[in-house]
């Protein structure tokens, strides 16, 4: 061992003396019923309990979900084909019939018939304007 090693060894020896003076009692750490600190198994017991509780809860939930009778809906769901939106009336604009029918030459359209006076068989004489 060289002098440098001896010097390092002395530093460590001084540290050891200090730490040994402050070391806790052996009986305080090795006693089986030591309340301070946590025993090794406590964490495992807690983890195992949490796992068991989680598995039980999941099992119970699955059990109830699988055996629950399927409830019929209170009101039958309307088909999309028969459904009418509540704002449908807004599409009924005046004069819509005019756009929906194809005019025929010589025939009055339905809407015009309703508005015209009934002169059955009376010929209206056309006059030629000067």
């Amino acid at each position: 061992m060289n002098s440098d090693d001896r010097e390092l060894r002395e530093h460590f020896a001084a540290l050891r003396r200090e730490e040994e003076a402050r070391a806790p009692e052996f009986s305080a750490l090795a006693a089986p019923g030591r309340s301070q600190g946590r025993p090794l198994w406590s964490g495992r017991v807690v983890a195992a309990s949490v796992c068991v509780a989680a598995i039980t809860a999941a099992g119970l939930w699955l059990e109830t979900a699988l055996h629950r009778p399927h409830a019929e809906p209170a009101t039958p769901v309307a088909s999309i084909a028969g459904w009418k939106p509540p704002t449908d009336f807004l599409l009924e604009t005046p004069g819509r019939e005019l756009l929906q029918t194809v005019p025929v030459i010589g025939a009055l359209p339905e809407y015009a018939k309703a508005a015209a006076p009934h002169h059955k068989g009376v010929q209206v004489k056309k006059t030629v304007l000067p």
Partner: protein
Amino acid sequence: MTQTDLQGELERMHAASFGWALLCCNHRREEAEEVLQISYMKVLEGNATFGGQSSMRTWFFGVIRRTAAEQRRRRWLQSQIFDRWQNGLAGSAPELDPERMASASECSRTLLQALTGLSPRQREVLHLVFYQDLTIEQASQVLQLTLGTARTHFERGKRQLRKILSQSGVQR
């Protein structure tokens, strides 16, 4: 070996074991006490049994080292799960116990501070050789390294420690 013999042997090694536990826990006293207590329980309850391949001391130091690593992993996991949510990522650099630093002498404080500048392996080998008076071969058994690797860590650690201590003015 009977239970009484085992307890007597552990009691005889108690001070040295506490010093080793302190190093394994970055000199955090509470953690070291917990690690040592768990190690004692492992041995006394028969969960760790001495096979007789090495000395009782090197075997028990190995138990302490493994236990400290287990506790460190447990704490890391807890910090990942809980602390991350609240405080963000904690710094990973080893921090010394401020209480321990306050109570240490000037010389010891400098040494403890200098030791944080070494790699964990170098720190462990130097502690086992200089603090615990083990041979490098025994240190390699505790750390489960080959003799050559332990020797390399020892030499590099010494060189680095001297460099840090000379920078801080402790060593000539």
